[in-house]
């Protein structure tokens, strides 16, 4: 439901823990890959609106993978945009479903659990889940509290996907203009995709006043690069991707130099791990892969309310519970994929629009999105989620 805007303010959803959401989702959360099919079935069978998260992990994991999967699930279960949660467990998996349930309860949100094995199997669990969804829906909608919020209440995630030469020339500088305004306004902006700062990390590092954050950034880049080198091949073709290369990007250095324009000129205040929440306000960097879906999943788990995603070749992918505003600097891509892309920055390429003019368009789109206007990927429902996995599956 759209609300009138006054200078970058909007009516958000106030949560019991004081967080403000820009959406109020009824979330179906499978804690393991074996629970995932039921979550998808429930979402499509439910006679109302519920969003199923995807989870292809959550069992037979170890070490950092085990904790990361839990952290991401917990982060999404208590996300500012999450209004209520139906947790789905097979019953024997690694992730402790009751702990997720308990965390959601403590956050003041309605929550219920479907235990597939205890229900007596997939069919019974489907019926059980549909009843519980209806009940959660009623409880969630009966307890809605709205509060006027502004940019300073937001964490905004930045992403680029399907980059081409226009990304570094138009779309990313336009995002950078918005980043600077957001940071000035007290928001937290999250740059990510560690692979896509290889070749530009020295530029970003200089903007970190805190030497320990600077070191964390450089270490994160070297860790990714060394892992890639250990694979024994030239990363070209993986990064940049074949599409990046067909779009004019020759090396990861060139791609990265174009990518960091998204970060504008603000100082870098913090470097954080995958799926963790920023603790400082301003521009932060999250260590994620360059792969868009894993990266967006990490930023969402870290509490990003909304994301801005530049695409040159044309990526339609959004995220289930976080609205993603798509922008392109490629006129041909915008013309062909207008139903997937929100903002056209191609006039900057043509010299017909200044970066700041396109930046205002993007900022307006961002505020309208927070006020309730659906992004293209929310309209199409073309969303994806994938939790980063690094270790062995046992």
């Amino acid at each position, binding site marked *: 439901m759209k609300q009138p805007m006054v200078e970058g303010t909007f009516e958000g959803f106030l949560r019991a823990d004081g967080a403000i959401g820009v959406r109020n989702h009824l979330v179906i959360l499978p804690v393991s890959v074996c629970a995932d099919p039921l979550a998808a079935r429930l979402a499509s069978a439910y006679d109302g609106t519920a969003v199923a998260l995807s989870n292809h992990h959550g069992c037979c994991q170890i070490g950092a993978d085990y904790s990361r999967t839990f952290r991401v699930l917990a982060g999404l279960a208590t996300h500012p945009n999450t209004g209520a949660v139906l947790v789905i467990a097979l019953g024997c998996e690694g992730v402790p479903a009751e702990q997720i349930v308990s965390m959601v309860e403590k956050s003041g949100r309605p929550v219920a659990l479907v235990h597939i094995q205890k229900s007596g199997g997939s069919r019974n669990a489907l019926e059980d889940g549909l009843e519980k969804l209806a009940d959660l829906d009623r409880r969630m909608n009966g307890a809605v509290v709205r509060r006027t919020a502004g940019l300073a209440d937001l964490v905004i995630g930045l992403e680029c996907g399907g980059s*081409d*030469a*226009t990304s*570094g*020339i138009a779309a990313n500088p336009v995002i950078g203009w918005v980043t600077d305004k957001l940071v000035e306004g007290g928001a937290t902006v999250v740059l990510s995709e560690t692979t896509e700062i*290889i*070749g*530009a990390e020295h*530029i970003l590092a200089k903007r970190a006043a805190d030497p320990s954050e600077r070191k964390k950034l450089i270490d994160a880049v070297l860790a990714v*690069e060394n892992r*890639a*080198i*250990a*694979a*024994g*091949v*030239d*990363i*070209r073709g993986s*990064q940049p991707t074949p599409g990046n*290369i067909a*779009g*004019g990007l*020759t*090396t*990861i*250095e*060139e791609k990265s*130099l*174009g990518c960091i324009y998204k970060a504008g000129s603000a100082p870098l205040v913090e470097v954080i791990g995958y799926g963790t929440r920023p603790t400082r306000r301003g521009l932060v960097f999250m260590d994620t892969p360059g792969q868009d879906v894993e990266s967006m999943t990490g930023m969402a788990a870290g509490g990003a309310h909304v994301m801005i995603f530049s695409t*040159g070749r044309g990526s339609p992918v959004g995220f289930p519970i976080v609205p993603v505003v798509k922008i392109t600097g490629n006129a041909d891509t915008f013309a062909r994929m207008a139903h997937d892309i929100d903002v056209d920055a191609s006039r900057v*390429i*043509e*010299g017909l629009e200044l970066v700041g003019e396109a930046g205002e368009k993007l900022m307006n789109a961002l505020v309208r999105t927070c006020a309730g206007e659906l992004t293209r990927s929310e309209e199409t429902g073309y969303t994806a989620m994938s939790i980063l996995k690094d270790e062995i599956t046992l």
Partner: protein
Amino acid sequence: MNGRKHAYYLASSHDNVATALVALCSGEQLVFDTIGSLAVRNDIPFGFKFALGEISKGDPIMKYGEPIGVASCAIKAGELVHVHNVESQRGRGDIAR
């Protein structure tokens, strides 16, 4: 030839390549403040780069005022610059260290 100025993107005076903002045909002339008139030697697709002057094998390719790789062979002024004549210096698991 009309010597279009807004047919290319040049980020920095340190750059030795420019990026085509329209598809350019081999032989097309462009005008630059620094080097004057330059004819491209190949068809340059939209978004692809061409050399502003001669680049020797092993020299850095400069864009946005920063190195984006090195020339893997000699490159002539106006020539297409892309994966066939540029090597990256990062993530090279294929070369022994």
